[in-house]
C-alpha cells in the first residue's frame, strides 16, 4: 500500500479533481519545471508528466506531435529526472510520470523507480505494461519505492477485470471515456453515461478520474458529475502552443477550466 502525495490527496479531497497532462520538454526543453510550478499556482490538483516516446501508440495527433518536438529538443528520462531534482522544495502537487514501457526498460525498471521516487514522483502510468506482468514481476518493485501504478479502464473493460484492477492498485483508476486515442472529440451520449454509471455501481475502493476528450469547462464539469475528477491532456498541449509566454498560457487555460 503506497502512502504518498497521491493517496493523501484522495483522502483529503473527494471531488472536482483536476489532473493536467503535459509532455516533458515541450514546447521547450527547459519548460518542464516552469509548467509544474505554474500548474500548482493556478490550482491543478495533480499532474501527469509525459515521458516522450518515438512511437506513442495510444496517443492522438496532438500528443504525438508534442512527443516528437520534445525528443527533438533532447528530452529523455535521464534529462527529465535531472530537471525534477530539487523540485519538491517548491512543488507539493502529486506527480505522476506517464510513458511507454520501452524507454523505461532501457533505463532499467528498478533503477527508474528508485530515481523517480528519489526526486519525489508519486505514481506511474505505463499504458503498455500488461496487468499480468505487473502482478507477477513489477508490483513488488513499485511497492519497494512507494510508487503507485495507475491502470486504465475503457467502456469495453469487463466488470471482472475492473474489479481485479481495483483490488491490485491503490491510488486511482483512469477511466477512459470512450474507445479512442487521446485528443479525440468525445460525444456525450447515453452509452457513455451508462458506462460511467455502471462503473460507479461497482463500488470500487479506488477513486475514478475520467480522461480522453476532456477539453474545456463544460466537459470537465460533466466528467466531475460522474467521477472524482478528470484529466486534461491534448487541450492543454494545444494551449501551451499559444503565442503568449508559457506561464501565461498555463494560467489562462486553468482559468478557463476552473473560472
Amino acid at each position, binding site marked *: 500500500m503506497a502512502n504518498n502525495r497521491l493517496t493523501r490527496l484522495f483522502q483529503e479531497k473527494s471531488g472536482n479533481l483536476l489532473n493536467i497532462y503535459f509532455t516533458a520538454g515541450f514546447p521547450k526543453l527547459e519548460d518542464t519545471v516552469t509548467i509544474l510550478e505554474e500548474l500548482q499556482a493556478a490550482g491543478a490538483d495533480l499532474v501527469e508528466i509525459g515521458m516522450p516516446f518515438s*512511437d506513442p*501508440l495510444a496517443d492522438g495527433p496532438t500528443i504525438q506531435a508534442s512527443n516528437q518536438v520534445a525528443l527533438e529538443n533532447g528530452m529523455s528520462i535521464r534529462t527529465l529526472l535531472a530537471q525534477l531534482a530539487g523540485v519538491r522544495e517548491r512543488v507539493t502537487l502529486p506527480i505522476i510520470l506517464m510513458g511507454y514501457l520501452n*524507454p523505461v526498460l532501457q533505463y532499467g525498471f528498478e533503477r527508474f523507480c528508485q530515481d523517480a521516487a528519489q526526486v519525489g514522483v508519486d505514481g506511474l502510468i505505463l499504458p503498455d505494461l500488461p496487468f499480468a506482468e505487473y502482478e507477477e514481476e513489477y508490483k513488488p518493485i513499485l511497492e519497494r519505492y512507494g510508487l503507485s501504478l495507475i491502470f486504465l479502464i475503457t467502456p469495453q473493460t469487463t466488470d471482472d477485470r475492473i474489479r481485479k484492477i481495483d483490488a491490485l492498485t491503490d491510488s486511482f483508476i483512469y477511466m477512459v471515456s470512450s474507445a479512442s486515442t487521446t485528443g479525440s472529440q468525445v460525444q456525450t451520449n447515453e452509452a457513455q453515461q451508462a458506462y460511467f454509471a455502471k462503473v460507479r455501481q461497482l463500488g470500487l475502493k479506488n477513486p475514478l478520474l475520467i480522461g480522453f476528450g476532456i477539453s474545456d469547462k463544460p466537459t470537465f464539469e460533466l466528467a466531475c458529475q460522474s467521477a472524482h475528477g478528470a484529466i486534461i491532456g491534448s487541450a492543454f498541449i494545444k494551449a501551451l502552443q499559444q503565442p503568449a509566454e508559457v506561464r501565461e498560457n498555463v494560467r489562462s487555460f486553468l482559468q478557463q477550466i476552473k473560472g
Partner: protein
Amino acid sequence: MNYAVNERGYYGQFGGAYIPEMLYPNVEELREKYLSILQEPEFQAEMQELLRDYVGRPTPLYHAKRLSERYNTKIYLKREDLNHTGAHKINNTVGQILLAKRLGKKRIIAETGAGQHGVATATVCALAGLECIVYMGRIDTERQRPNVEKMRLLGATVVPVTSGSQTLKDATNEAIRDWINHPEDTHYIIGSVVGPHPYPDMVARFQSVISEEIRKQLLEKEGRELPDYVVACVGGGSNAAGAFYHFLDEPDVKLVAVEAAGLGVDSGHSAATSILGKTGIIHGSKTLLMQTEDGQITEPYSISAGLDYPGVGPQHAHLAQTGRAQFIAITDAEAMEALRELSRLEGIIPAIESSHALAALKEVGAGPDDVVVLNLSGRGDKDLNTILTYFEQQDGQQ
C-alpha cells in the same frame, strides 16, 4: 528446447502482449478464439480450397540445377513467388480474412511497407466483400506508387501516414490507433509474425503451409522429408516463420535466417536487427529491436522495403538467442548481385527480399551431398524500378 509459443504468449523471454487497455478486448477476443476457429473442419476446408484454387497452392519445390552447380550443393527453391499477388503474404491474409468473417467483423485494417501485404489484404477483402483500409507511410506511398494504385483498383482505401518517420513502423502505429478507435467491428490483419500475442503464432500458423508442403515435396523428390538447410530472409519474419515451422523440432535441419545489412552492419544504415537490436518492446511485443540508448525506436535501412522493420518477430528473437537458427546479414550490394545471378542462371527474377536469402548461399557452408531448401518468398516485378535504378547507378560508377 521448445520453440513454440507458450500459453502466456512467450517464446522464451520474447513475445507477450504489451498493449494499452484500449486494445485489450480486441486482442483478448482473438487470443481466446483463434485456435478453436483454426481447428474447425469447415474453416480448414474453406481455407484449403482457397489456397488451392485462388492462391495456386501447392507452390512448386523446384530443383535449381544451374544454381546448385554454382554453389556445389543441391538447391531447391520453394516457389512462393508463384502465388497469386506474387509473394507468400497472401497465405496469411487468406487465413485472417476467413477468421475475421467468423468473428463477425465488418471492417479490415492493415499496415503495409512496400505494399505487398497491403495488396494481399486488399485482394482478400475484395474476395470477401469487406471494407479495407490500408495504412502506409507517406514516403512509402511515393516510393511504391504502383502498389498504391493496385490497392485502390481492388477497392481499398489507402491512408498515407504522416506521423513519425512516415514509414512502416508508423503505418503500424496508425493501424493500431485505428483499431483502438474501432474496438468492435474491425479486424486488424497484421502482415508479419510481429505484434502482440496471438499474432506472431497465428501468422506463423497461416504461413506454416510452406514447410508442410516442403516436407511432402522433398519426400517425393529425395526420399526424405528433412533437408539439411532451410534458408529464408527475415524482416518481421513471416516467410521464414512459415518455412521453419515444421522443422523447428528437427535438430538435424539447420535453419538460416537472413537479415538485411543495408549498406553494412556498422554503417548506421542497416536493418540487421539480431545484431544491432536490444531487447525492447515494439508494437505490443517484447523482442529484439533497433533503438537508441534512451529506448527510442530507430529507423532501419535496407534497399528492400520488405526488410526494413526495426524489430523482428519474437520467435525469431528466440531462435537467434538460443542459436537454433543461424543469422546472416547480407548487404544491398550482395543481394542485388544474387538477384542478377538467379535471373541469369535460372530465368527467375526474385524479389529483393528473397535475394538476400540467395546471397547467403555462399555463407551457409552446404556441401555437395547436402540438400538446401531456399524459400523464394516473392517475385521481383514489384522491384523493377529499384533494380533498374540500382544497376544504372552502379554501371555509371564503373
